[in-house]
């Protein structure tokens, strides 16, 4: 399967900050027909988490990743392996391989599991939708508060909200291209305007386009009581097949390299 690998490698190695990074030992997954293989082995790799993508490199200084795991439709769980500090990334798609990873210690393992559990695009989208709603509600409350100034403030709003002078008119966010522009610091307009003006047109990030339905329930339903990772299992969907293809894409290159290496070893060591 083709992939825009130059861009992918560039995203992996560019200087945008990683969400997490560190050395992990990765269990080598072998196929059943390699009958001569006994036991499990692990390879130490440099892992970089950016967004919903987990890259791994042969060395920390390597310029290109040797692997990529797309963290959608997966769960991250502690692992009952012979190794201590092991955890696994498992996919809802039954055909997709699991990744067993081993950290250096308890703290490292917990940090990785936490970081990976919150890495999915779906999770991020859920949080954004929730905040979008909250912002709308806050704007409405503000507008209502302005209309009837004698009402006692509610929802824990601080004093500064009733003083519009403290809400300066700010730059509207520039239209975004992926990765090209940065946000201007958008904000509520000053006294005299209601929040509904602010919400209109280009002045706030446009609502996210409708996507495949979330398996965790309606995005427009009642507010989530808490967005703990345990409640946000990535939904199962046919698209996970696409991602297992992506995982295989890199995996195949490694399989080829390994076979070639093994051939050379055999020739050198009769």
């Amino acid at each position, binding site marked *: 399967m083709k992939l825009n690998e130059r861009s992918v490698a560039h995203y992996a190695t560019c200087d*945008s900050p990683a969400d997490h990074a560190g050395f992990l030992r990765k269990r080598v997954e072998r196929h059943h027909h390699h009958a001569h293989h006994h036991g499990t082995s692990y390879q130490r790799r440099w892992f970089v988490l950016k967004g919903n993508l987990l890259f791994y490199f042969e060395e920390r200084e390597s310029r290109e990743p040797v692997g990529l795991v797309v963290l959608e439709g997966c769960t991250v769980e502690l692992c009952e392996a012979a190794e201590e500090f092991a955890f696994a990334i498992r996919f809802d798609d039954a055909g997709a391989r699991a990744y067993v990873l081993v950290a250096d210690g308890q703290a490292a393992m917990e940090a990785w599991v936490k970081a990976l559990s919150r890495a999915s695009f779906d999770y991020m989208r859920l949080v954004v939708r929730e905040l979008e709603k909250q912002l709308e509600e806050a704007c409405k409350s503000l507008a209502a508060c302005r209309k009837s100034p004698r009402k006692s403030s509610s929802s824990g709003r601080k004093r500064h909200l009733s003083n519009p002078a403290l809400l300066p008119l700010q730059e509207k966010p520039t239209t975004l291209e992926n*990765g090209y522009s940065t946000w201007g610091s958008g*904000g509520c307009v000053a006294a005299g305007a209601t929040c509904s003006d602010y919400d209109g047109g280009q002045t706030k990030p446009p609502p996210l386009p409708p996507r495949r339905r979330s398996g965790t329930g309606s995005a427009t339903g009642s507010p989530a009581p808490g967005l703990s990772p345990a409640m946000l299992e990535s939904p199962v969907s046919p698209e996970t097949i696409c991602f297992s293809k992506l995982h295989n894409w890199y995996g195949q290159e490694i399989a080829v390299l390994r076979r070639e290496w093994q051939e050379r070893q055999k020739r050198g060591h009769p």
Partner: protein
Amino acid sequence: AVLKKRLVKLVVNFLFYFRTDEAEPIGALLLERCRITKEEENVFSISFIEEPERKYCFECATEEQCQEWVEALKRASYEFLRRSLIFYRNEIQKMTGKDPLEQYGISEEARFQLGAHRQ
């Protein structure tokens, strides 16, 4: 350049493309650090920061569809989503004085922080 008919699917921050009669994709584009450009009628293109001259062109059936794709793809990257989150978080904090991520216990997460060097 020859145009080939493809089924194109946007899934999170990946654009998968399929031969129209096949269930498995023949390729994918990761949509990070890319630019979506409206070209001539019914046509848009995707290009990437490090290779701006290389354009992946797509022709749609109608101009309306083309606009829908452009809008959807411009918002498709994880980094866009992250910036939206930071923006909303900031706005809510300014308006209510409270960090909306605190109630979820995720306010200290690295991935939700406003970093000047983020793109």
